[in-house]
């Protein structure tokens, strides 16, 4: 039989089959899409219901976190309290019988951070400090200093003995100070900024 004749006879069922197959795949695709929406909405609904049910739990957690933040806040200085921070270091050293000889930080970087600060922080400010004192007292001072919240970390320590035979050492510390503005966090939470 001529292929034209065969085509003439079979075009209708062929077209219908194409429509049928297309419809089948399209309906499956659409159903899958709707199924995904149903699944995601069900999960969303469940999450929101659970969120409402867990409100007291959230409030307790918030209270605990508030307390922790307050603890941090009590021990941390605000960004514009750099002098206070240096004084605290000097005071801590003095309390341990160690003398603060020098304290240096990058002033330009500090001012830039202050200018650009748009949240609670924390803001990190590298410093270099030189102390001197009895080597045991110095060790105890370093131990306390290292645990202070306003000290982000200590990067290096250099202890030097002048060789005079006494127990005094010169101690050079490189580290970073940390500042935190708790009040800024409250403002952000309340959406006032």
């Amino acid at each position, binding site marked *: *039989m001529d292929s034209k*004749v*065969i085509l003439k*006879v079979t075009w*209708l*069922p062929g077209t*219908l089959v194409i*429509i*049928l197959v297309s*419809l089948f795949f399209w*309906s499956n695709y*659409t*159903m899958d899409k*709707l*199924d995904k*929406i*149903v699944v995601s*909405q*069900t999960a969303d*609904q469940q999450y*929101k*219901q659970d*969120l*409402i049910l867990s*409100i007291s739990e*959230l409030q307790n*957690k*918030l209270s605990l*976190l*508030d307390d*922790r*933040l307050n603890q*941090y806040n009590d021990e*941390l200085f605000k960004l514009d309290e750099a002098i206070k921070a240096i004084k605290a270091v000097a005071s801590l050293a003095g309390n341990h019988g160690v003398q603060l000889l020098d304290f240096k930080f990058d002033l330009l970087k500090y001012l830039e951070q202050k200018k650009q600060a748009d949240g*609670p*922080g*924390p803001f990190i400010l590298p410093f270099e400090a030189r102390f001197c004192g009895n080597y045991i007292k110095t*060790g*105890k001072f*370093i*131990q306390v200093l*290292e*645990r202070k*919240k306003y*000290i*982000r*970390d*200590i*990067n*290096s*320590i*250099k*202890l*030097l*003995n002048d060789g005079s035979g006494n127990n005094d050492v010169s101690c050079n510390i*490189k580290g970073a100070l*940390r500042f*935190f503005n708790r009040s800024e*966090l409250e403002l952000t*939470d309340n959406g006032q900024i």
Partner: protein
Amino acid sequence: MTSEKTKVINQSNIDTVRMEKISNLKEEFVFGDGRLASSMASKILCLDLTDKYLKYTMFSKRNISIKWLYAGKLLELPVQDQETEKIITAGINILSLKLNLNKVKILIIIDGFDFFLRHIKIPELKGKALIEAVKWECDKQIPFAIKEAYFKILNTSKTAEGIQVLTAIITKKAVDRFSFLGDKLLGVIPAPIALSGNLLSKTNTEQLTDIVNYWGHSEAIIDFIYEGRLEFCKSSKLHEESIVDDYLIQPVNISEKFENNLKNSLDFYYSLFPGRQINKIMAYDSARRKVTDKLSQAPGFESICENPYGALIKDRKSLQEFWDISESDYILGAGAVQLNEKNIFLPHVVKQLLNLNRLKAISRKFSIFAILMIIILAASFMAENSYRRKSIEQLQHQIDIIESSAAFSEAVRCEQKVNAHLASISKLKQPANWAADLLKAASHLVTPGIYFNMMDLAKSGDGSDAIEIRIEGYYYGNTQKADIRLAVFIENFHSYCGFEKQNLERFGETIKGTNKRLNFVLTGSTRIGKWTAK
């Protein structure tokens, strides 16, 4: 022209009779009411072109059940073949006035002068190879090219050398002239095959050959039937009282000629099938009237004439009545309808048309099925789609209710605060303390006689937890213990603080009596946590 006679043969007591006068109708038999035939059955109109008149027989056929509806004679047939188309068309027109021929298929019975039955021996082959071998052999055994003929394999039987194929061959010209009937044409059957159809149900069970002898208006046929199939046939032209033979120049007396003809056919048959035995000779029409007695005498076989319509007319009375009136006039139509498709020849054009019709029918059915499937799929999609969209709407509505509640707003606010606090706390977490602990550990490990001038501890600049260590100091003590003390310190430093030595430089060695002073510079590294774990 008016109808000459109309007979009604009742097949059952409740049959109604339909008698109408139809012009050009020579003779008609109605078997009950043809309209009562099952609508599931196909109707077959056999047109016999071998007689002086166009004879028709109409049947309803369903599987193997055949019901005879009508029989009759219509128009006088022309001598010229060219006018056959006109006569058939006229005959069908006449019949269509009386009968519903809408779904009737037409079976044409023609004479056997263009027909050949050949036994071909070929090697054992199958499929296309078998067909090609049969064509090749047939080409050698017929007086025209095989491409000008249609052929059918009627039977295959295994022999010692291969297979023997019984092949029916007919010229295309004889079959194609009925192409004008289109898809109404069921097929064309040569008279010798049609005649054999009557004996299919009467086959003897003793493996004997039956001979059927039929003399029509212009043709004498001798069929040899064995185990329900035509095995050999001989067709001769008749001219008034003489047989015109291919190899006899002068026509001879019919009975004498027939006797010779039968004898020759028998000889040929025995040569083809050695050992076969003849059961009886059945004679019909002129053969019955003119030579039955002589047949019995000459070859020495029993010659009988049985009513051939028993397979189609069940009622004994009707059977006898029909036989008494028509004798064997409709024997070819009755035989043809009992044959299966493999005995029927079909013009190539009609075959293509039927294939196209079949394809159209399949296409139509498939289209309907596809449309139904599309409807079902679309309906199920719409239902499911609507159900899911409703679910989504309900969920969205519930979510809206939850979101509009004060409790949710409070919970969201709380959650946001908690997250912000957690983020801040995570940023405020201090890294592990190390400096004081390492200093303390190192000072405890210093062995007697070792003094430090400088100790430098610095975190690695690459962000890892490695700590670079540089110690400058000196040993002062027993001359012999200097190296041991230094080694013990380094070993302890390694064991307890994970110190990995990189370099140890010793210099400025001075000895005062039993004491020695030795300066050293020790460099190496450790990792945060190594000493706290010890």
